[in-house]
Each structure stands twice: as structure tokens, then as C-alpha cells.
């Protein structure tokens, strides 16, 4: 390379800079761009948080959350029933969030794994905290009563408490001779038949007003239970038929059940 070329180059660049075509971008342009990226990160993080907490809520509301307690059979049903569309959407958004965060030196100077773990931890802990509040149950109630805008209402009605053929969550409303009746979140009453084949992995003491998860094929309004589990998880979603009663009026009527296998 000859030595004259760089000097010619400097002059060429300087003469180009003096033309009207090349203009320095104002500082406000870069400030606004940074603000937009930060805003994008915040909005995206909040949306991911909302999605993950919503998925957790739907899993609890449908009873899927408690299925691992039923062993391999429960885990298998859980994996085939998870709202994968929402989960994959959340994962895709986490990848986008990670690429936005990686624009800042505090993130790209460290291994990607660190920022990814930080994002996932923040999202999981925050969604856990959100699920301790009445945020999703409140919106679900609003959706049931038709008070949410059409898209949000459909979203909650469609995803919040999906009904499955073989997993059911409800509150025991009545103990019967061959089992019990449960009231689902939408007010439907389901007849649960308990037999000697029914397993109770967490004990048999089921009484009225208990929240239970039932595994078993549904046939119209009847379920022949293969597994039953009482859970301590109050979503505070009043059903259409829900009428609050004073606690001392509930008769603790125990079911005469064959011990679980």
C-alpha cells in the first residue's frame, strides 16, 4: 500500500463531510432511540411476566399444576395438556428480550447465560408473586361477567380454566353414596364415582367445600375417578352458582372410601 493513499482518503472524507448530504444526527435522536429500547425492554418484560403468570394461573385453575403428584400418569397428562402456544410464545419473547438487553455493555460483557438466568429468575419469581395476588382471578371474573374487552375476554374464557376429558378441578358440593359431587369454576356440577380402584395418593379424608383434583374419563356429567387428590389452593374464583355459606353450616361428612393403593 502506498503512503499517499491514506492522506488522499482523509481529504476525500473531509470534503464529503462538507457537503449537504452528510449531516450529523442530533443527540436527541440517540437519546430517543435508547429510551425506545429501554421502553421496549420494560414492556416486553411486563408482557412476558403477564404470560408466565397467566400460564401458571391456568395450570392451577384447570388442576394441571397438581398432576405431578399423581406420578408418571399425571406427568404424562400434564405434558400433553400444557398450553404450549402460550409457553412457546413466552420463550420466544424471552429470546427477543435477551437480544435487546445484549445491546448494553453490562449484559454483553458477561456470558449470555448470566443475563438469561437473571431474566428467567426475575420472571419466575415475579410471576410467583403475581399469583399470590388476585390479579388473574379478578380478570377471570371480569371475563366471566363479560366486562373485559372482546379480545381480552375471549383470551381469559378460552385459556383460563380449560376443560379436559380426563382432568377435573372443582369444589366438593355434596357427598353421595358412591362418591361426591363437585362444582366446577363455570358452575357445572360433576358427579364423581369413587370405587375400590380409585387411588388417593394424599389421603382419603374428603369433605364438603374441599377443593379436589380428579383424574378420570368424563362421560357426560359423570366421572369414574381413577385418582383423587385434595388440594389447598384457593383461586377465589366464585362460580355462577356459588353462594357463600357460613363455615359452621358445612357438615364435615366424610366419605367411606377404600384406602388408596
Amino acid at each position, binding site marked *: 500500500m502506498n503512503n499517499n*493513499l491514506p492522506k488522499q482518503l482523509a481529504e476525500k*472524507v473531509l470534503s*464529503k463531510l462538507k457537503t449537504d448530504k452528510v449531516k*450529523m444526527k442530533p443527540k436527541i435522536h440517540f437519546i430517543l432511540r435508547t429510551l425506545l429500547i429501554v421502553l421496549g425492554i420494560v414492556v416486553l418484560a411486563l408482557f412476558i411476566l403477564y404470560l408466565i403468570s397467566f400460564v401458571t394461573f391456568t395450570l392451577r385453575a384447570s388442576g394441571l399444576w397438581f398432576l405431578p403428584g399423581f406420578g408418571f400418569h399425571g406427568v404424562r397428562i400434564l405434558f400433553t395438556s400444557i398450553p404450549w402456544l402460550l409457553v412457546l410464545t413466552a420463550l420466544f419473547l424471552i429470546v427477543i428480550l435477551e437480544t435487546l438487553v445484549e445491546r448494553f455493555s453490562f449484559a454483553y*460483557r458477561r456470558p449470555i447465560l448470566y443475563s438469561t438466568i437473571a431474566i428467567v429468575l426475575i420472571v419466575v419469581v415475579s410471576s410467583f408473586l403475581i399469583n399470590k395476588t388476585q390479579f388473574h382471578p379478578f380478570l377471570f371474573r371480569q371475563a366471566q361477567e363479560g366486562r373485559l374487552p372482546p379480545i381480552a375476554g375471549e383470551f381469559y374464557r378460552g385459556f383460563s380454566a380449560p376443560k379436559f376429558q380426563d382432568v377435573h378441578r372443582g369444589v366438593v358440593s355434596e357427598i353421595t353414596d358412591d362418591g361426591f359431587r363437585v362444582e366446577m369454576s363455570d358452575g357445572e356440577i360433576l358427579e364423581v364415582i369413587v370405587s375400590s380402584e380409585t387411588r388417593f395418593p394424599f389421603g382419603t379424608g374428603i369433605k364438603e367445600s374441599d377443593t379436589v383434583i380428579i383424574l378420570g374419563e368424563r362421560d357426560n356429567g359423570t366421572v369414574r375417578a381413577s385418582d383423587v387428590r385434595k388440594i389447598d389452593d384457593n383461586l377465589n374464583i366464585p362460580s355462577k352458582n356459588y353462594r357463600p355459606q357460613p363455615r359452621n353450616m358445612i357438615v364435615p361428612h366424610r366419605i367411606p372410601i377404600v384406602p388408596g393403593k
Partner: protein
Amino acid sequence: MEQKESEKSDEEIARLVQAGKTDLFGILIRRYEDKIMRYAKKFLFSHEEIEDIVQEVFIKAYVNIQSFDASRKFSSWLYRIAHNEFINAIKKKKREHLPFFNLDTLFPHPASNETAEKEANDRELQEMLDKCLSELDPKYREPLVLYYFEELNYKEISDVLRIPIATVGVRLKRGKQIMKLIYEQQFTQTIS
């Protein structure tokens, strides 16, 4: 006046350019034109391409000078612009495979003791690098060029390439190993 300004640091001059003394940008061009030309050559562009691309680097730097944070190093910022321009030029030509994602940026790595070896091997490595450059994967080539020719430190290379500091160390170490291997193979072939 020009003499006095030329004694200032890159960052001080950049700050003055930001404040409106745009004529001083010429000092920055003159300080870096050789370095950026040399950096471009290591990307294996042809002589005709180099001048156009380097001109574009300085024009982009001028247009975006208000985005430069004067509390940081000007050289890292300028090399980042150059890196992006070179990558874009390579992509246009589809000459080299540039991976979208590299696994070595994902995990933490133990710190590499590069500085202890540096002084003893610098000259030898520069010679090797010159001879084996075209054989090296761009992933290893660029950190080696920035470290041994442009004399940037790990943190500065991390800022230019937007990769973790630990990954810079790993790429330098692996790059040197690969380069030595290529050099030995070439040398053996020449002898035989």
C-alpha cells in the same frame, strides 16, 4: 490552534466535535486512517474495496458522533463502527460464513493469562498471523487482529465485538493454537 487541539486526547476532541467544532473531526480521521485501513486489510478486502469501506466508516462515525459516550474510549467506538461496516460488506459479498450465534458467548470461561505470554510472543505471532490470516476462521481472526495489531485490550475488544470479556480470552487462546497449527503445516509443506 490546530497544534494545540491535536495534543488533546481522542475523547476530548470527540467532545469538541459533539459541541459543534466539526472541523476537528479531521484530526480524528488522520489519527485513525492508517489503523482502520490496516484493520480492513485483515478482513481480506481487495484494495479497491478498502478505500470505499474505510471512507464509509469515517462518514458513519461523523454522522453518529453524538451517540459516542465521551467517558468511554473513542477507539473502541470507532472500531465497532468499522467492524459493523466490514461485516455488512462481507455479508453483501457472501464471501465468508458468519454465524448468527456462537456457543462460546453463552457460557462463562476461566480467565486466560494472556498478558504473561504477550511480550515474548508478540512479534512471532504477528508474523504468523500475517501469513496464516486467510486460513483462520473470522471468529478467531478478528480478536487476534484487534489484540496483536491494533493493541486493544480485552475489554475494548469485548466492546468492539459485543462478546463477553471471557470469550475474548478464549478466542485469542484457541485462535493462537489454530494459527500455530496452520503455520506449522504450511512450513512443513514448504520444507518438504
